[in-house]
């Protein structure tokens, strides 16, 4: 690829994005996105949908810059609540809860939020560069992913998730299987049949992520906190005093490697349509835990456990633009909405956007970087404010969280059934806490499960029942081999160290 051409294009992009009006749209998008992202349940889809009519009267460049700002703004806001109150806004920030919330309780919410911002910014920068340099060729790779490849990828991701187990591996696998089962609820794509809906039409589209996340994480956490013996009127969520708002030199040193690796993982998975940010966040966390000298720190507030997944999911979010922009293939509902906004503006998304509207394409890429920079500028000062929130006595805090959760869950589909199911998952989540079962792998499996089954059956349908397709297609075979290697790596030390781990696991979580 011609390098000077890219520089020239980026020049055009920055001159477009840096216009005062577009900067204002970018800022507005990022701000609204962050604010809405902090509200549980109201994710990017709802946020973009609500603001869509506003963009009808904007020019196309301004419109897409603002909508993209909302998109990564909400992603970011979702991580903030994951760290502060154990409420993941998106499935990709579930894993951030584990060490992020542990850090917050240990009085280190400031460094956790800051490192999430810094990691996201770094990942966003790399992601933007990747989109600019390698967009079209990367998109071609994404097209090579058929049903067998997706299935094998899911298998690998789920096996990687078992590494997350801080307790018994057997229980983690059970949680993964349970997640797969919960993912089955709803209409089966292959046959059109409703499964596990028990006659409730509200379940026909499955259980929404927000219902499970708020039940297993928010609801259960509150119930558990309230049963603590130390429950007094002046109690807060903190276990220890707040120590410093910004990461120390040691923190930065520990996190930098995690940020690099997380970014690389996120960039890789993000290009593939379907589950990108979630898979990358989980994989990045698993990798850090494997690499760490002392894996037992994970789950108790290891800063790498925040830095890696946050960098990974943000890199993936940026790379999601690759297929959207170059092929016109949306990654998910939010991207579909952004594409819809473009068509309303009279721009047919697809490969021709790059040549027909270079100002729009490159302006958006430039604004992605500017938006990420704005997120850091916006959020670092907010860290102090967020941390102060933790000093609010818990007796005021938990009813507020409950109110936001209830409204958030209801607003997803305006369905009372979703609120009732949050109770069910809340009680279940409390049982998991009591029984020392980790909910995070369940969520990954819940997100990936439907894709896994769908692609397994689709692959067999297309191959007319021949199971060798998974091994004869090179990319698919590669993932399966990686999965087998992971299994071996996992099982060998666990046989050796079985005793020590069994003892250690009783304290972890």
């Amino acid at each position, binding site marked *: 690829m011609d390098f000077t051409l890219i520089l020239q294009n980026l020049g055009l992009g920055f001159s477009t994005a840096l216009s005062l009006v577009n900067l204002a749209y970018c800022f507005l998008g990022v701000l609204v996105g962050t604010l809405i992202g902090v509200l549980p349940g109201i994710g990017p889809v709802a946020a973009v949908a609500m603001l869509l009519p506003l963009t009808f009267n904007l020019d196309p460049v301004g419109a897409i810059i603002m909508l993209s700002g909302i998109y990564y703004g909400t992603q970011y806001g979702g991580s903030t609540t994951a760290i502060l109150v154990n409420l993941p806004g998106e499935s990709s920030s579930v894993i951030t809860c584990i060490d992020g919330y542990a850090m917050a309780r240990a009085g280190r919410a400031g460094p956790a939020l800051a490192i999430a911002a810094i990691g996201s910014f770094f990942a966003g920068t790399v992601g933007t560069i990747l989109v600019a340099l390698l967009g079209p060729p990367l998109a071609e790779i994404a097209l090579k992913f058929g049903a067998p490849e997706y299935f094998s990828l899911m298998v690998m991701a789920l096996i990687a998730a078992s590494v997350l187990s801080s307790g018994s591996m057997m229980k983690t696998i059970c949680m993964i299987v349970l997640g797969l089962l919960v993912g089955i609820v709803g209409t089966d794509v292959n046959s059109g049949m409703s499964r596990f809906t028990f006659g409730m039409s509200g379940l026909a589209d499955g259980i929404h992520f927000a219902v499970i996340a708020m039940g297993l994480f928010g609801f259960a956490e509150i119930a558990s906190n309230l049963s603590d013996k130390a429950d007094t009127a002046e109690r807060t969520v903190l276990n220890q005093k707040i120590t410093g708002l910004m990461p120390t030199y040691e923190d930065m040193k520990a996190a930098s490697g995690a940020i690099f690796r997380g970014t690389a993982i996120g960039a890789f998975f993000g290009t593939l349509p379907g589950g990108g940010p979630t898979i990358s966040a989980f994989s990045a966390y698993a990798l850090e835990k494997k690499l760490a000298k002392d894996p037992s720190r994970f789950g108790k507030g290891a800063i790498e456990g925040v830095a890696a997944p946050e960098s990974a999911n943000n890199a993936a979010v940026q790379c999601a633009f690759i297929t959207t922009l170059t092929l016109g293939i949306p990654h998910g509902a939010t991207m579909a909405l952004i594409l819809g906004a473009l068509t309303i503006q009279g721009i047919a998304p697809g490969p021709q956007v790059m040549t027909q509207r270079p100002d729009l394409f490159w302006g958006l890429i430039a604004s992605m970087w500017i938006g990420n920079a704005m997120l850091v500028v916006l959020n670092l000062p907010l860290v102090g404010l967020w941390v102060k929130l933790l000093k609010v006595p818990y007796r005021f805090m938990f009813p507020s969280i409950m109110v936001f959760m209830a409204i958030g869950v209801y607003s997803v589909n305006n369905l009372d059934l979703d609120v009732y199911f949050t109770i069910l998952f809340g009680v279940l989540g409390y049982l998991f806490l009591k029984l020392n079962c980790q909910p995070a792998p369940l969520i990954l499996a819940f997100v990936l499960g439907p894709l896994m089954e769908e692609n397994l059956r689709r692959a067999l*349908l297309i191959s007319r029942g021949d199971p060798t397709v998974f091994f004869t297609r090179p990319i698919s075979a590669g993932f399966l081999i990686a999965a087998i290697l992971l299994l071996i790596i996992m099982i060998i030390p666990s046989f050796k160290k079985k005793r020590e781990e069994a003892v250690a696991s009783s304290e972890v979580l």
Partner: protein
Amino acid sequence: MFMKMRMLVLGLCVGCSSLWAAGVSYPNKPIRLIVAFPPGGSTDIIARLVAQRLGEQLGQQVIVDNRGGAGGTLGTEIAARAAPDGHTLTMGTTSTHVIAPAAYTTVKYDPLKDFEPITLVASTPYLLVVHPGVKASSVKEFVAVAKSQPGKLNYASAGTGSTTHLAMEMLNAAAGMNVVHVPYGGNGPAGTAVLGGQVQALFGSMPAVLPHAQAARVRPLAVGTDKRSPALPNVPTVAESGYPGFEVSLWLGFFAPKGTAKPILARLEKELTAIANSPEMGALFEKNGASPLTTTPNELTQLMGRELQKYGKVIKAAGIQLK
């Protein structure tokens, strides 16, 4: 005597409601437009475009209320049960008002009996495309390829029981070929599958596949409508290609719950028809791959009756039954 009393009461009621409606009082609060699909789909975008304009015309905000789920049947059911006061409307489509009631055994509303049809606003054509690797540039050639290697070709759909599925099953039946159905979870993934050559064909909705056809990443063979599309004037219709009478499109229209007062319906019909036929709205529809299409309530009822029969037959023949 009893009949007369009933007529009198009915007449009084209608009279009162028309008086009430003819006054300045309708609409006297924001109108809720139930869209039975999640935000972002083509139905939602068209609904939002029209809702904004309708709100301006009526002097009350029209709020889009997305009640997605169960192939659009969940939201439509809510609309069927809403108070018939003109403040709750719904965007009905071929999916919600024809295919779902015909294919699902569990739909809890009757598309003809539970709604007052107001008017259609737009229709979206379907486009048959193949991966460039398939050696066919017309429907005839495609049918020949499919017949020369029976059971080898696959087609993608946006889901079991979706219009994209039924359209291809109709062609399968008309041409006597057997292209195997591979369902995907929506128009986006189905499009990707054809782009990547995972499956060979897709009878996709125009907005989803048009850009790919224009970029020559897939080859358009025919449109499913009875007339050629202005966006692709060189692509023939399926009917022209040797299957006369073949017609598949997705229409979108406004419906009110049964029992909504006639004057309200008339007012809405007037406004909506004007909006749909306005040049600006036409241009916006065009960009979304749709074209304006308006009907009287009567025409709409007849259209639904015909389509219910047509798709009912396909669904039965292909053995599709959804629960």
